[in-house]
């Protein structure tokens, strides 16, 4: 859900999407406009509570007169723009971008992506069988890589990082959407515990000198987990249940309540499975949290179950 701030009245911008006339307030993006008219455009790095990072390029659309395709999540609508969301160029781009992502990354826990792939006819395996996992991706040097024979497709597969009791980092699933970095940094938490390190295919989310989380500036707010679109970051409880094969989203209920730890009044959504809290999130449209919580709200729920 998009949070719309009600400021001064805005002019309306009129343009067309796939031949349909659309009118949106000045400042709205093409993606906003598409949502408004019920046109669904897949996105991965787009965050409803974050500034567009423009990185995944899944939401590319064609704007007449533009040399390249444009990211609908960040390109603002302009009067008279003629946008195509389903042209041959956009379809090819979406298919290949999804294939590239799927060939390099484990998308098994990315909601929505399997359907998009099927719809686009994406086949990540056509780039070859995945290369074996690597245990030294954190040391990848910028501007250097080993010669390749092309018989396997390079991937970001690597061991899962479990170095604390609260959340797990499985960077074999990371698509480098920048959302965790933005949530940890100046957009929400101001902890700056993580950044993108390295470059090119060696780029990865990292703490300072890839130090374990307990030694880093991490304050365990879990806001990075909240915004992660692929499950590369997951709560330890969820991770363990997935490992056991006992994680069952269809059997979960969600109840939104108010956090009792302090007086701020953050909304908590308790995800409950078999009468046990398995995860705590916060509604992104909450005017108090915008989806963010602190360590207590996010992780301090064990006492509820101490019966």
């Amino acid at each position: 859900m998009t949070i719309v701030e009600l400021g001064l009245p805005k002019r309306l911008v009129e343009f067309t999407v796939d031949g349909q006339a659309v009118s949106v307030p000045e400042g709205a993006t093409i993606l906003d406009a598409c949502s408004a008219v019920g046109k669904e455009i897949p996105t991965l790095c787009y965050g409803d509570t974050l500034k567009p990072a423009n990185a995944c390029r899944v939401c590319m659309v064609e704007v007449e007169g533009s040399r390249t395709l444009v990211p609908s999540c960040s390109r603002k609508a302009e009067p008279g723009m003629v946008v195509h969301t389903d042209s041959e160029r956009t379809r090819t781009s979406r298919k290949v971008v999804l294939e590239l992502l799927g060939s390099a990354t484990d998308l098994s826990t990315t909601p929505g992506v399997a359907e998009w792939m099927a719809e686009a006819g994406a086949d990540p395996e056509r780039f070859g069988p995945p290369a074996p996992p690597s245990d030294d991706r954190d040391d990848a040097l910028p501007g250097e890589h080993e010669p390749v024979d092309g018989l396997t497709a390079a991937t970001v597969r690597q061991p899962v990082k479990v170095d604390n009791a609260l959340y797990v980092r499985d960077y074999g699933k990371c698509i480098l959407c920048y959302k965790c970095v933005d949530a940890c940094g100046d957009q929400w938490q101001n902890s700056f515990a993580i950044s993108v390190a390295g470059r090119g295919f060696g780029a990865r989310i990292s703490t300072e000198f890839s130090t374990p989380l307990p030694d880093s500036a991490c304050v365990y707010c879990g806001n990075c987990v909240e915004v992660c679109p692929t499950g590369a970051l997951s709560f330890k409880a969820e991770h363990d249940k997935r490992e056991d094969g006992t994680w069952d989203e269809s059997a979960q209920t969600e109840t939104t309540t108010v956090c009792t730890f302090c007086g701020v009044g953050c909304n908590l959504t308790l995800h409950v499975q078999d009468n046990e809290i398995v995860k705590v999130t916060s509604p992104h449209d909450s005017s108090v949290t915008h989806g963010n919580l602190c360590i207590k709200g996010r992780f301090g729920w064990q006492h509820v179950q101490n019966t």
Partner: protein
Amino acid sequence: MDLQFLDAKATFEERAAVDALPEGAARDQLLPALHAVNDRVGWISQGALNYICEQLHVPPADAYGVASFYSLFSLTERPERVVHVCTDLACRVNGADTVCDTLTEHVGPAGKARGGVTWLRSPCLGVCEKAPAALAFEAGDPAGSELLAPATGAEVVLAAGRSPATEEGAAPVLHQTDRESLKLLHRIGAVDPESLDDYRATGGYAALRNALQLGPNGVIREVTDSGLMGRGGAAFPTGRKWEGAARQPALPHYLVCNADESEPGTFKDRVLLEGDPFALVEAMTIAGFATGATLGYLYLRGEYPRARRLVQNAIDVARERGFLGTDIMGHEGFSFDIEIRRGAGAYICGEETAIFNSIEGFRGEPRSKPPFPTEQGLFGKPTVVNNVETLVNVPLILTSGYAAYREIGTEKSAGPKLFCLSGNVRKPGVYEVPFGTTLRELLELAGGVPEGRELRAVLLGGAAGGFVRPDELDLPLTMEDARAAGTTLGSGVVLALDDKADLGGFLLRIASFFRDESCGQCVPCRIGTVRQEEAVSRIVGGRKLSTGADDLALLREVGQVMRDSSICGLGQTAWNAIESAVERLGALDGAES
């Protein structure tokens, strides 16, 4: 900002290096700070990074992300002496592999420290006219450097075993002896690049004097009417860019001179920087005057130590003599100064918005456009970014007048143009010709391919450019003719390959280059360049996937999506040269089963 640090302390030397930065330094001094430590100690330790972060108030994870972006920095301990051996296009054609083999035999494998030295394979060092090249750095106070070009394996092994003699290699030499006909290069090798008096005696600072009389709008009018187009590759009209920035109400305005010449095969800007540094200083001053910028950044690639020394000298001398600073040339109220920012080994930082992030102390990732730099550029302010060669045309326009300038070249491509001739030609070097000269004429100036060989192809425009066949040499070198022929002049690369050249290996190097130099920000480029390299490697090596996939079809599709959906020009052009080799040379024929 409440920062948390790992428990590591800086040594005396590391602290001293950082303390030498200007007082009150902020985040935009991050790159200089990393250079300071890397220069003095040879690598950047946890303690040093902590100390830098404390001084500049930068979060350590953030600074780690920046430091690990650049290939000239090391975040693990390494010897004080590091030798970079160029293995890029022109050096490859001229025996870089042999140099590497000799080093492996006598010094050990690349990247492994032995006897106080380590050597690394490097992308283009920008001395293609003297290929193959190697550049040695030695950490210390002061740090030393030594350029070896052309170099034999034995010479590089010798250099690896001694302290650099702070020997910067020979000054650039021109093969065009008729200086009267040269408009941009006429001082190269003819005047002392350290002497402002020499510069003035050969017409220097007449253009700035004219500019001050014309006023900012007058200068922009002259530049617009001259038809000058950017020489960095994109060919945008310079006057329009200047006007766009000049009329922005937000202050201050900035000027950035893009001297991060890293396109493999390009070295024209280095020749200008080393041979005529005052011309660039004067040109930047004129650009600052016209666009209302009071500070200009010269973003210089880190692999050009000689250029750095000579341009720094030119800036210092110009300031002493009143050609920079306040009330320049007695013109009250006109202030302008220049600061050099040294790149640290990242091709992407030559992209016009990545350069802003790099100067500001962030990862050199391109920004999304719009907004365009003339509206929101460096530090979010209106900014003009111009290439070195573009700027050096400006004094010529202001001394000869726009009409005379337009006489040179063709109607749509006005002025003189510099080309970088390298590869299999007899006299590699920078050549100045009017736009419209044919490729054949240009190759003849450089003596053509060596005796007894035949031309196989010419790479025009660099790794992001395209190939031209021997039967297409009558192509007039103009922006419009290149475009019509489905290629580009790019940054002026003309790299000749003869019949003995290993075209497959050459294409593989281009693919490998783009993979290495991708910033990694967007998916089409970050993963697309990898898949491109893998497919080229299969084709060149005569291998096939077990699925029997059609590798050319795969390349075409990935190439199209890199071009359509990448954030910046790097990803958008990463398929150009390989595509043209496929389409025009049939270079990867045999891939389709």
